[in-house]
């Protein structure tokens, strides 16, 4: 960007700024346009969808939306996803912060080994382990007593798998965060007779709040958009996640040519996320902000 405007002696050079404005506005259009287009398309029939891209629908066909809602059960999937992501993220944050904290602030033999083993997970191609993972999850269903809650088609299994696969990034992110917290506070607390566990929950965790918020958001988005694990582990349509539902309508469009309802379904998936995001935007961004600079 703009080395040509190097030695302008005053403030923001106007050429640079107008270039910047154009770029920002341009990218905003690039982001919004496909979504708006999908929204408009959700009212079109097939003929209109494959006509010129910017043809307006002849009428607002809400039937597409009703069709998507009824036949695609978007509402059910939405609710299923909320449950799984809630517990998945909660578990990830709890276990992830515990592991990150210990690995970041306690020296013991094997510390680095465990740390790098976990971080190494970042580089694993996920579906390399898919076949074996399926077998393992299936096996858990046969374990006495707890088996009935695990196995395939179980939210508990899915949540545990989400947690396990979210750990690498969470630990990576939080460990570097915990490292930066001042040691003096910890020492003072310990001298006051605070136990390690108490120190963690009462002192360190609150101090790490900004970082926690950031990585929480990260995990919410990641797990919300997860597709491969549910596909592998949840085959019961009543327990499907939202992405599975979308993929299903999308796949079916290849057979039944229901393009209008497909776009309606997509809007149903996008719109709530946008509202949630817009609502929490300040917390999210400040969380990421504080998390990121550490």
């Amino acid at each position, binding site marked *: *960007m703009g080395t040509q*405007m*190097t030695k302008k002696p005053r403030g923001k050079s106007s050429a640079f700024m107008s270039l*910047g404005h154009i770029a920002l506005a341009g990218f905003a259009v690039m982001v919004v346009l496909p979504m708006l287009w999908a929204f408009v398309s959700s009212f079109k029939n097939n003929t209109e969808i494959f006509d010129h891209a910017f043809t307006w629908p002849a009428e607002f066909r809400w039937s597409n939306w009703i069709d998507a809602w009824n036949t695609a059960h978007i509402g059910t999937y939405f609710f299923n996803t909320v449950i799984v992501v809630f517990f998945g993220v909660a578990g990830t944050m709890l276990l992830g912060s515990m592991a990150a904290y210990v690995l970041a602030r306690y020296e013991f033999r094997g510390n680095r080994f465990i740390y790098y083993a976990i971080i*190494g997970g970042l580089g694993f191609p996920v579906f*390399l382990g898919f076949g074996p993972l399926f077998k393992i999850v299936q096996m858990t269903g046969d374990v006495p007593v707890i088996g009935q809650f695990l196995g395939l088609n179980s939210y508990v299994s899915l949540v545990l798998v989400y947690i396990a696969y979210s750990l690498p990034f969470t630990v990576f992110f939080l460990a570097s965060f915990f490292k930066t917290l001042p040691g003096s506070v910890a020492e003072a607390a310990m001298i006051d007779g605070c136990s390690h566990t108490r120190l963690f929950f009462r002192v360190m965790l609150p101090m790490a709040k900004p970082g926690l918020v950031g990585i929480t958001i990260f995990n919410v988005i990641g797990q919300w958009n997860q597709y491969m694990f549910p596909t592998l582990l949840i085959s019961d349509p009543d327990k499907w996640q*939202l992405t599975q539902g979308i993929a299903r309508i999308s796949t079916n469009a290849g057979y039944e040519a229901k393009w209008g309802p497909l776009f309606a379904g997509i809007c149903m998936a996008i719109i709530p996320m946008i509202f949630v995001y817009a609502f929490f935007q300040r917390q999210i961004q400040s969380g990421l902000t504080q998390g990121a*600079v550490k």
Partner: protein
Amino acid sequence: MRHGRNPFIVGFLAAPVVLYVFFVILPYVEAFYYSFTNWRGFQKAEWVGLDNYKKMLDDDTFWKAVSHNGIILLLLPLAALVIALFFAFLLNVGGKAKAGVSQGVRGSKFYRLVFFFPQLLAVPIVAVLFQSVYRPDKSGVLNGILGWFGIEPVGWLIEPKIALLMLIAVMVWQAIGFYVVLFSAGMSSIPAEIYEAAELDGSSPATTFRRITLPLLWGNIQTAWVYLGVAAFDAFAIVDVLSNNQGGPDFSTTVLSEEIYKATSAGKYGYATTLGVALFFLTATFAVIAFTSTKRESVEY
């Protein structure tokens, strides 16, 4: 205060480590084993030694896939970082200074909101959106726009020369928002006095950016580069859902992960895991180089 230290460490690490070993490490270890077998995805797996590895090195498609991963590794981080830095700079310090404090340009709140949207979309959704954007006739969004200027429709995803670039563009599109936020975070923590001083010295925005922002953000940029680099080795989702014929036309967009997936669906699990092992070593090599080379100084302020 040493008492209870060891039980505490064990207690805190036990649950996460068990979960991780059980659901992540174990499957991968098994997968490594399978790369030396002719496993078909069912029960029996016969040991075939290095056969799969020989076959892989002999396979043109494998090398094509690796080279595409290489191209993505070069372009994705570069494009995403440059654009995100530029935007973050505009949004944070691009505007007129108010009361001596640098501000973002007008509308920066709106932009911050909007730029993050692509992050919120699951890949199946991104796929549907961009299939519409790239559709090769006038019903595509891009070609519809070109049509206004009398330009013939372009086969965005079917011209072998540009298809991969088009896919990378989507990856960049999706990534930018996150890094804008990340860099904004870094920038907003750079003390305002530094910028004031720069402004008083008559430094242009470009110079300010080069002399101040960039060095102070170096740590963030390095982290971002590592993330994006690892993402470049994956790249599966977008290639799989968006490209013509899964990695086409004619293998011109295929990547390693896509080949793994295809081998898997063809029932060649043994060979698929071999490709997976190759991908693992490539990613790991990159990650080690990236981590060690970025370990050095990060500027203190």
